[in-house]
């Protein structure tokens, strides 16, 4: 730093662009960063040079037929459970918000049961259903439980029902987030309950429902690995099966992890895309809380925030009364 030269004018010091400030130095950040990089390098070296991990095995088995079979099963299980979960979730949510005590109780019990027990336990129970009920159906129309409940159907049942319970809470939250004036306006126009729900409430609830549903999908994708306990043929089942045959357990788990990462990355990217689509044109389109804050005022993309924002109710005041 040198002393100011005599020629310096006040405008040079304060005018825009004239000021050359030295930014605050974040030395701590640099030090911490260096430490992290060093630690990471050590970790990578430890893994990479570990002679018991056969890297060539991982590379060659990533596209193994058995692994790809498992991958397809995992995707199929995820998509099917999610679709059933969303449909079931909407039904359960609507039941929970119904005026009908019976529907409310049934749906409440459903959520309580399927959300309140671990999904792993639910998978095992469905898989072992034949122990309680060897036959399913009525009279002559019954089938052997073991024919009906394959590992895959057991897995699908458990995951879909569990997902429906969680989704119902998300959907319920979305429905409750829609301004009650919307329902009243629709009812005042003579619309019946079903129409109000389908045409007015659910479309507006979607904004609140979609972001957490994306999270649910990513979570469900990983949760499907639990069905390996009943050998449902998913990615983890297959990876473990292959690994068990020739002592490449860890390698195959890494193979499975790579695929899970690929799938969740794709799902996350899809979610981000979907959110951006639904929140397009908004100033703060990031983060869940801002989504919730904004639903009331900005339900369509590309619109001016302030123009239509509902003005705070103006109390009857003297000057307005004179009109």
């Amino acid at each position: 730093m040198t002393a100011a030269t005599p020629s310096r004018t006040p405008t040079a010091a304060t005018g825009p662009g004239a000021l050359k400030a030295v930014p605050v130095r974040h030395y701590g950040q640099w030090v911490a960063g260096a430490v992290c990089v060093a630690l990471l390098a050590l970790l990578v070296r430890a893994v990479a040079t570990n002679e018991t991990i056969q890297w060539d095995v991982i590379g060659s088995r990533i596209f193994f037929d058995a692994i790809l079979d498992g991958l397809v099963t995992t995707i199929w299980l995820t998509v099917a459970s999610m679709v059933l979960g969303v449909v079931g979730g909407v039904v359960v949510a609507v039941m929970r918000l119904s005026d009908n005590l019976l529907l409310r109780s049934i749906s409440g019990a459903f959520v309580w049961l399927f959300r309140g027990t671990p999904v792993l336990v639910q998978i095992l129970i469905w898989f072992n259903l034949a122990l309680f009920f060897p036959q399913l159906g009525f009279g002559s129309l019954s089938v052997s439980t073991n024919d009906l409940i394959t590992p895959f159907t057991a897995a699908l049942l458990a995951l879909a029902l569990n997902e429906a319970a969680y989704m119902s809470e998300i959907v319920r939250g979305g429905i409750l987030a829609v301004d009650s004036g919307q329902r009243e306006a629709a009812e005042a126009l003579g619309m019946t309950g079903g129409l109000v729900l389908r045409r007015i409430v659910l479309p507006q609830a979607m904004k609140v429902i979609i972001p957490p549903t994306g999270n649910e999908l990513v979570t469900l994708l990983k949760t499907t690995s639990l069905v390996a306990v009943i050998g449902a043929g998913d990615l983890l089942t297959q990876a473990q099966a292959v690994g068990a045959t020739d002592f490449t357990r860890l390698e195959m788990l890494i193979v499975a992890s790579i695929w899970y990462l690929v799938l969740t990355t794709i799902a996350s990217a899809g979610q981000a895309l979907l959110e951006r689509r639904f929140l397009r044109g908004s100033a703060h389109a990031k983060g869940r809380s801002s989504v919730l804050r904004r639903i009331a005022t900005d339900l369509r993309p590309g619109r001016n925030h302030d123009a239509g924002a509902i003005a705070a109710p103006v109390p009857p005041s003297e000057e307005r009364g004179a009109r």
Partner: protein
Amino acid sequence: MTTGLTAEAATGSGDERLMVEALGIHKSYGSLEVLKGVDLRVRPGEVTCLLGPSGSGKSTLLRCLNHLERVDAGTVRIDGDLVGYRVKGEKVYELPKHEVAHQRRGVGMVFQRFNLFPHMTVLQNVIEAPTRVLRQPKAEARERARELLAQVGLADKASAYPLQLSGGQQQRVAIARALAMQPKLMLFDEPTSALDPELVGEVLDVMRRLAAGGMTMVVVTHEIGFAREVGDTVVFMDGGVVVEEGTPADVLGRPQHERTRSFLSKVL
């Protein structure tokens, strides 16, 4: 809570044809009694303005007229039909929801906060109920909607979304939306209270023209000027009862009750 509704009371009076006949309306929210036995009669083609301080029960009374609020006691008749109930023999039966919805077709309502459907364009807002509820063909409903939008001065906003409009424009769309059902009665719940002062006029203008066209209207408002100019009857409510009612000249010009006088002195 009992509906103090007897079959005898529910069969109605009948000598003069009334568009609205509400008798002995009681409504409570928990222990708070909002309406303490209110009567309201509106003849066809008349404009009735409900005035009163906040919490006087005027909005609740309005909402009872189309069964958005269930009355605890009393009867509401719209054009002779008992709202929300049916009398059969000696008994009064509550109507199932879809029949209440059917009754509401004939009664338009405009809300303080507009309550337009934000996910639909202006035109979609207006044709939604005619096409879904009355099952009008879309082309016909659209044509009629454009006429209505022209009437409220918004012909050029048909494809805009509600949040792209000003409050006054939104409220005019809301009026067009209600009119699209061809109601015989229009209810207005403080239609200008959420508007910026300079936007109040355009909405009152539309309402004034509607009244001039012979529409039967019940208007909860704080616009004393509107009530004086357009109202056939002014009803002043306070504390869940009707304090005073009559022509605007009487109620606003020569109020008989101290409560009416003190209210008017504050708002005028």
